[in-house]
């Protein structure tokens, strides 16, 4: 931040020169301060990304990463002897895409609804509110691996407490195998993710709620408007910008999901996400070329969504709308 330029420019050329010298040295200092961070990001993000893109265009395997030869887009898609090959023709890849999209859609919407309810409750005044707010943070702090293991035990087909509860309430008559059955396992994954991430959503919404002006609520109360109507007509539009940010964050996060699926259901194709697919090809099948191609596709889908979101939010803030 340069020192008040307007006051200095009129006081003669010596001061101006000294001033611009200060500005130049401050710009240099800024880059010196930035350099270590930028270098490290280059080592862990920029360069590895370029290498991954390169690998995706080669036939690299784990044992010959250095001597891999260029094969163009064959890992992605190739037409040979009347048949299509490559990831884009791989049924398992499309299964993983479908799983990821289903997972993202259901977990983020459930988190949004539950997070909203949590936030509204925590925004009200009641005794021991601080304690409840701390308790809500606990699922967020628990490592994903640990929550997947805890839920894996609770959802155990023979000895799990969830089946026990559901059977004693007579909601089911025989134990369900939550994490192994093809119909249920994706739902089990969604449940665990919703449990872990709702607190984060609730906190973001709560922060938005606490910034709302209280006078319009008083006006609404004086006019005797029903609270539900106030929520949909006043609260919801006012916190919409914060909701959009929170949902965007969660969607981008959910598209990358790995830990919870890998631990809860390992490499089962019923729940496999695109990240699990890519890692399996890379590490377990040691197909570095093919796996990198999958990684690049994950990257492209997440990045293009990010860019669209950045473009939209920039445009709306330039028009003086939500930021």
């Amino acid at each position, binding site marked *: 931040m340069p020192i008040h330029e307007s006051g200095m420019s009129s006081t003669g050329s010596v001061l101006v020169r000294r001033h611009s010298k200060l500005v130049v040295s401050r710009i240099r200092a800024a880059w010196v301060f930035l350099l*270590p961070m930028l270098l490290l990001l280059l080592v*862990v993000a920029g360069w590895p990304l370029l290498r991954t893109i390169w690998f995706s265009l080669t036939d690299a395997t784990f044992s010959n990463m250095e001597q891999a030869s260029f094969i163009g887009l064959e890992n992605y898609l190739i037409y040979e002897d009347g048949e299509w090959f490559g990831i884009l023709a791989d049924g398992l890849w499309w299964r993983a895409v479908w799983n990821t999209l289903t997972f993202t859609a259901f977990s983020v919407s459930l988190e949004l609804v539950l997070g909203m309810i949590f936030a509204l409750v925590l925004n009200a005044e009641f005794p021991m509110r601080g304690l409840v707010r701390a308790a809500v943070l606990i699922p967020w702090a628990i490592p994903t691996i640990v929550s997947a293991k*805890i839920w894996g035990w609770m959802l155990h087909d023979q000895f799990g407490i969830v089946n026990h509860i559901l059977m004693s309430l007579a909601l089911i008559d025989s134990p369900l195998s939550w994490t192994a059955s093809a119909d249920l396992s994706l739902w089990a994954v969604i449940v665990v993710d919703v449990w872990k991430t709702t607190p984060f959503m609730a906190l973001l919404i709560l922060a*938005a709620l606490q910034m709302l002006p209280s006078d319009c609520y008083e006006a609404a109360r004086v006019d005797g408007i029903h609270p539900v109507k106030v929520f949909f007509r006043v609260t919801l539009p006012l916190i919409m910008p914060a909701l959009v940010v929170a949902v965007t964050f969660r969607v981008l996060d959910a598209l990358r999901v790995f830990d919870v699926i890998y631990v809860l259901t390992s490499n089962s194709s019923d729940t496999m996400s695109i990240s699990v697919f890519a890692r399996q090809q890379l590490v377990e099948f040691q197909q570095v070329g093919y796996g990198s191609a999958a990684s690049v596709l994950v990257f492209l889908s997440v990045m293009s969504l990010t860019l669209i979101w950045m473009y939209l939010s920039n445009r709306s803030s330039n028009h003086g709308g939500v930021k």
Partner: protein
Amino acid sequence: MNRNIMRILARSGFSLLVVLILVFCLFPFYYAIITSFKSSSELFQASYWVNQLHFDNYQHILGQETFIHSLFNSVLVSTLVVGLSLLLGLTASYALGRFEFRGRSTVLMVILAVSMFPQVAVLSGLFEVIRMLGLYNNPFGLVISYMLFTLPFTVWILTTFMQQLPKELEEAAIVDGATPWMTLVRVMMPLLWPALVTTGMLAFIAAWNEFLFALTFTLTDDQRTVPVAIALISGASQYELPWGIIMAASVLVTLPLVIMVLFFQRRIVSGLTAGAVKG
């Protein structure tokens, strides 16, 4: 009369909601704790409490040398990650928050873009880098690779806090002829302690919980971190996992985080919302 009944109903409905939220959030962890104190014969009867505390599971897991190694590795990696990302985050955010220069918004955009990177997108390239540096199967390799996700949010959050500090302090230091480094250390840092504690804790939690890199970049039991160690605990067969031991290990690695969260609840919340809302 009628209005009183309505009010009582509304209030008890609200209390019920609070109780439901508490059960939803706390029951799984509570269940893990009681499971960890069960003997192996009690394990297979579903119950909501334990009649007698058994410490067998804890004795077993703490008697395993590899688990102690993993605990040590996790503490080492997370601490170094906090130190390194705070150091680099502090200098970078000072430049981004208090200096005006061409390219500033581009750098901020790059950082935001990196924070959206799917970890799996750099997996093969980063694996190569780690191996070239001779850090494969080494906790220090994990420290470097974790910068991918801790640096962006550290820089982001600290930059927002930097921008909120009053301009006058820094100007006084410049007039006194202090170098930017001295200004950062003597003037800015003392004011930024709360933000540093917050971001440090977020970085610690992120590093402590990370799984994909830790699973991929380590090979032997003695180099692993606890999330990987827990994920790889296995029994005689796939269907006979030692659940009591897994739960004991889970409680052990989670307890420090839970205590931290309960203590620093407000700070963590302010960090999380500063990182996201300004995004």
